[in-house]
């Protein structure tokens, strides 16, 4: 396998790991809020989180490009802070992927939180556990399968993205050229053997991920 292929694989894994970690941090409070709130905003927030499920990645990528570009609000902010422009950088790719993979992490965790119901948390409260304490000592352990599904799906989905990477990241070796883009390059250059290695690897990876998900975590299959 060529060096640029290995670099693309490494970059893909790095991107997916960072995005999954960030999504667990950001997605958990969102899932908790969506699972427990009685606010009328629940529907609105839930729909926004789920948008990437139905939108073409180009649409999401286009708007992110506009917002993070030199004339967008985020772009102006990053410029003012001395960070520079986010599009066509690894951090820019991370941000785009966080949005794009959000529903795959939020929804399983939200389902798991909802499945717990009120009672265990009420029991914890009557046993002197503060809401914060009960969240960590009762809700999170009970929602563990949801976290597992969310992390696996978030990771796998980030590995598999293509359109949004092209829109936001472009095709810069070692910075934004992930496996899916590399395969595209190989095919365009008619390097079918190289494309086969990577594409076959992706198929195997995805299959193993889903196999793991369904074998070790059978209870969650229905909610996916």
């Amino acid at each position, binding site marked *: 396998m060529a060096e640029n292929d290995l670099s693309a694989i490494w970059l893909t894994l790095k991107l997916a790991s960072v995005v999954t970690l960030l999504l667990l941090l950001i997605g958990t409070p969102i899932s908790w809020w969506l699972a427990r709130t009685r606010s009328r905003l629940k529907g609105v927030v839930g729909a926004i989180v789920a948008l990437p499920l139905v939108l073409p990645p180009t649409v999401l990528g286009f708007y992110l490009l506009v917002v993070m570009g030199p004339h967008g609000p985020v772009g102006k902010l990053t410029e003012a802070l001395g960070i520079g422009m986010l599009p066509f950088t690894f951090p820019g790719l991370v941000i785009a992927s966080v949005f794009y993979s959000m529903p795959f992490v939020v929804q399983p965790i939200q389902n798991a939180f909802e499945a717990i119901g009120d*009672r*265990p948390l*009420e*029991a*914890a*409260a*009557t*046993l*002197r*556990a*503060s*809401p914060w*304490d*009960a969240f960590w*000592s*009762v809700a999170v*352990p*009970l929602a*563990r399968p949801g976290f597992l599904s969310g992390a696996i799906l978030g990771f796998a989905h980030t590995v598999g993205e293509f359109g949004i990477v092209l829109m936001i990241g472009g095709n810069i070796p070692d910075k934004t050229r992930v496996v899916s883009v590399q395969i595209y390059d190989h095919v365009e250059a008619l390097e079918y053997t190289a494309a086969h290695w990577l594409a076959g690897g992706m198929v195997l990876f995805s299959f193993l991920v889903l196999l793991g998900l369904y074998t070790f975590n059978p209870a969650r299959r229905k909610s996916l």
Partner: protein
Amino acid sequence: MSFQIDARFKIERRDFTLDVDLKLPGQGVTALFGHSGSGKTTCLRAMAGLERAETGYFALGDEIWQDETRRHFVPPHRRALGVVFQEASLFPHLSVRRNILFGEQRAPVSERRFVLGEIAELLGIGHLLDRAPEQLSGGERQRVAIARALLAAPRILLMDEPLAALDLKRKLEILPYLERLHAELSLPIIYVSHAPDEVARLADHLVLLDQGKVVASGALNEVLSRIDLPEAFADDAGVVIQARIAAHEDDELTRLEFPGGQIFVSRHDGPVGTQVRCRIHASDVSLALAPPLQSSILNCVTASVVALAPTDTPGHVLVRLEASGEPLLARVTKRSVEKLGIRPGLMLRAQIKAVALLA
């Protein structure tokens, strides 16, 4: 260290209003009794702070947990209370031992009153500590839930129909443990139930709730022997007497003594001197002017008539009696009342056809 529990709650829902003002003893078992929809569970949840009444006041002695007149509300996790729900609600991800210690670990050391070993023995769960909750039977789970609540060092124990989800066999298995709690711990217990037998067996104080309102509140027998209760409670009319096992006789009978006299029941295993509770239904008591000389009914006590009241069954009358200060109820026909000239003040003989020994 006796104190009074003050509970005033007003909760308005679309199709239901709870409006109670209760003063309860800070010791013994207080039963909140009522049919489903009477508001007893809502009342208990308000006490626990799981439900916040818009207008509410709740205090244990001088410790005020809720006073909405000054918007004071202590959240449940800062209240020294234990709750046992209808389903045990054990944490499935923790072992029995870690479930039980969950509250203790969070209770200040100075407030802890119970020790795991003693409580485990009291509730007979010592051998279950290293199991997972899913390996327990329903009755065992409920006992673990009680232990868990006690180890959190509560000043009051709230039980929301703890036996309702269990079959009769499990119920009978748990009841003795509840009686031991009652006898061995000095901890006020609020016990929500719709089962008259549980109430008769466990309660010292009884609150009757109907459609969100308090119908009666007082010492168990004081409430049970009232003859002016609404229809909803009339079917179960009867009293509970506290008796002492006086002797086991040769013909398989046990003689019980209570202030109003003595009664015989089928042989009971308890040692002489044991205190037992018996329930006597109003419909199992008949009245006679003279001691019946030729009757198969063994139990006959002298009592005086206190009052009479009509029942919902036409032609039937509920008679309140007193046998040396012990209240009794009898359900007789109007015709008998007229024939015997039953009126307040009359001394007569109450024949007790059946006695349910509650232990």
